C-alpha cells in the first residue's frame, strides 16, 4: 500500500507496528478530548444509561458523580487512563460496571463473526460477478451489473435487511428474523452487509478485469497459443487479485457503518450497537476501549491485506 520505510516484508511489518502505536495513542486522546467537550452533564448521562429514562433523576446523578469521582481534573484523568493503557488495562464500563475487556470480548466477538461471514459472502458475490462483467466490457452482463450495483449502493442497509426478513423469515420461514444464538441467525444480517460490500467490490473487480483483459500481455498470452481459460487462470486472476485485495483494506471503513445499522435492525449483540449506547451514555472507558480495539483491528486487517498483496504481487518485493 504505501511506499514503506524499507523494502520487503519486515520493513512493512515494522511500519504497521508503528502505525498501530500511533493509532492507539491518537484514538485514545481524540476520544478523551472529544468526550470531555461533549455538552450535557456526564453524571446525568451515565445515570440515564444505568437506570433508564424512567428512573434517572438528580439523586441518581449525584450518586453517580460521587461514585465515579467525575469532577476529577481532566489532566489527571487522562494520564490515569494513559497509564492504565500501557498496562493493557482498559478499565471498567461506567454504566454496567463490567470490565471493558469482557464487554468487548462478548460484543466484539459477535461483530467480528458477523463481519467475517459478511466479507466472505461478499467475496463470493462481488468479485466473480465483476470478473465476468469485466471480461466483456460494455456487454449485457456489464451494464446489468452496473445498474444492480447502483441500486444496492443507493439502498440503505436497513431497507435491504427489511426486504430480506420479509422474504426469508416471514415469507418463506427458512431463517430466523432476528436475534442470535444459532449460526442460522447470522445469515440474514451477514447477507445484508455482504450485498452492500459486493456492490462496490464487483465494480472494482470489473474495472480491474477490464484493464487486464485489454492489456498487451493478455493478448500476447493468447497469441502465444494459450487457451482463453488458461490465459484467464494464469495471467488474468493474479493481476486482478492485486487491486481487489488492496481495495478490501479500504472496504472495512464502510463495514463499520453498515454493522451499526444491521446490528440494530437484527438485534445482534455487536460492537457498533454498543458504541452508540456508550456515546449517548458518555461511558468514556467503553468508548475509548471500543475505538482502540476497532482501530488496532483495522491496522491488523490492513497488515494482513498488505501481506496478501505482497505474496500476490512479486513486484512489491523488489519495489
Amino acid at each position, binding site marked *: 500500500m504505501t511506499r514503506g520505510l524499507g523494502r520487503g516484508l519486515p520493513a512493512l511489518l515494522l511500519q504497521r507496528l508503528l502505525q498501530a502505536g500511533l493509532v492507539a495513542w491518537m484514538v485514545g486522546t481524540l476520544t478523551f478530548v472529544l468526550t470531555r467537550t461533549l455538552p450535557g452533564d456526564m453524571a446525568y448521562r451515565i445515570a440515564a444509561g444505568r437506570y433508564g429514562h424512567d428512573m434517572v433523576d438528580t439523586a441518581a446523578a449525584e450518586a453517580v458523580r460521587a461514585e465515579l469521582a467525575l469532577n476529577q481534573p481532566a489532566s489527571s484523568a487522562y494520564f490515569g487512563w494513559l497509564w492504565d493503557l500501557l498496562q493493557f488495562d482498559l478499565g471498567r464500563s461506567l454504566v454496567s460496571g463490567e470490565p471493558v475487556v469482557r464487554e468487548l470480548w462478548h460484543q466484539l466477538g459477535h461483530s467480528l463473526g458477523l463481519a467475517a461471514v459478511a466479507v466472505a459472502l461478499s467475496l463470493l458475490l462481488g468479485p466473480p460477478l465483476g470478473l465476468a462483467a469485466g471480461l466483456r466490457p460494455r456487454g449485457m452482463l456489464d451494464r446489468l451489473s452496473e445498474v444492480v450495483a*447502483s441500486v444496492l449502493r443507493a439502498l440503505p442497509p*436497513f431497507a435491504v435487511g427489511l426486504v430480506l426478513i420479509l422474504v426469508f423469515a416471514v415469507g418463506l420461514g427458512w431463517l430466523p428474523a432476528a436475534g442470535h444464538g444459532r449460526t442460522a441467525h447470522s445469515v440474514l444480517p451477514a447477507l445484508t452487509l455482504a450485498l452492500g460490500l459486493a456492490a462496490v467490490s464487483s465494480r*472494482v473487480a470489473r474495472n480491474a478485469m477490464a484493464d487486464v483483459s485489454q492489456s498487451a500481455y493478455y493478448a500476447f498470452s493468447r497469441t502465444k497459443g494459450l487457451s482463453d481459460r488458461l490465459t484467464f487462470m494464469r495471467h488474468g486472476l493474479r493481476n486482478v487479485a492485486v487491486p481487489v485485495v488492496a481495495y478490501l483494506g479500504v472496504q472495512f471503513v464502510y463495514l463499520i457503518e453498515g454493522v451499526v*445499522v444491521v446490528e440494530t435492525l437484527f438485534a445482534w449483540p455487536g460492537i457498533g450497537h454498543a*458504541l452508540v449506547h456508550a*456515546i449517548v451514555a458518555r461511558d468514556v472507558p467503553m468508548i475509548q476501549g471500543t*475505538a482502540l480495539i476497532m*482501530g488496532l483491528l*483495522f491496522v491488523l486487517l490492513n497488515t494482513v491485506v498488505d501481506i496478501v498483496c505482497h505474496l500476490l504481487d512479486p513486484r512489491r518485493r523488489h519495489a
Partner: protein
Amino acid sequence: MTTLVAPLLTLPRLSARQRLGGLLLASLLVFAWLVPWLSDADPARQQLTRILQLPSLAEPLGTDHLGRSLLARLAAAIRLSLGMAMLSVLTAAVPGVLMGIIAGWRGGWLDRVLGSLADACLALPGLLLVLLLAAIAPGNFWALYVGIALVLWIEYFRLVRARTRALAASPQLEASRLLGFGPLYLFRRHLWPELAPQVLTLAAFGAASAILAMAALGFVSVGLRPPTAELGLMMIELLPYYHEAPWAMAQPIVVLFVLVLSLNLLAGRDPR
C-alpha cells in the same frame, strides 16, 4: 470560443453515459427548486386526519405519517441533502487534494509523514468521530456531514498523491519549468486536468455515501431534528409504515437511487 470554456473546470466532451447522468441530475435539481414555485404547500404543515394518503391530484406524491405533503418535503429534502452532501464532499476533497499534491510533489519525508497520518486516520473508526461530532453539536446537520467527511478525505489524498507523484517526474512538467512557468500554472495546465475526472468521481460517490451515512445515523436515533426534511431521515420516519404505505418510504429511496445512478454515470469509472 475557446476562451469561453471555464478555465478551472474542464468539461471533457461528455460521452452518452455522462449526458444521461447529467440529465438525471438536472431533473432532480429542477424538481427540487421548481416545486416551491409550483405548489405553495409548506413541508411542515400537518393534517393528522389525512395521514398516509395515496398520491392523488390534490397531493401528487401523497402524504406522510403526519399528513404532511410529501411533494414539498421531498423537494426540501433534496435541497438540504444535496447541499449538505456537497459540503461533506468539499470538506473531504479540499484537504485531501491539497495534501495529496503536496505529498506527491515534494515527496521525501513530507510524503512519509502525511502518508502515515492518512493511514492512522483511516484506522480511526469513522463512525466514532461522526457520533462524537453529532453529540458535540446536537441537532445541526453540518456537524454530522463534516464528521462523515473526516474519514473520506483519505481516499482523495491517496488518489491525488499517486497521480501527482507520477506526473511530477514526467517530461511535460520539466519542459514547462524550463519554459519559465510557475507552480500555479503547472497545477492549472498539467495537474488539475489530469486529476479532475478522478476527483469528481470520488466526489460523486462521496456525496451519495454521505446521505446514506446520515440515514444510518438516523436509524440509531442520532441527529434527529424535527421538522426538517432530510433524505436520510425521511427514510427512517417512514420505515415503520413500510407495510401500510410502501410507496411513501420508497420515494426518498428512489430519489437517492436516481442521485447515485446519475453520479455513477456522470462520474464514469470508479477510480478506486
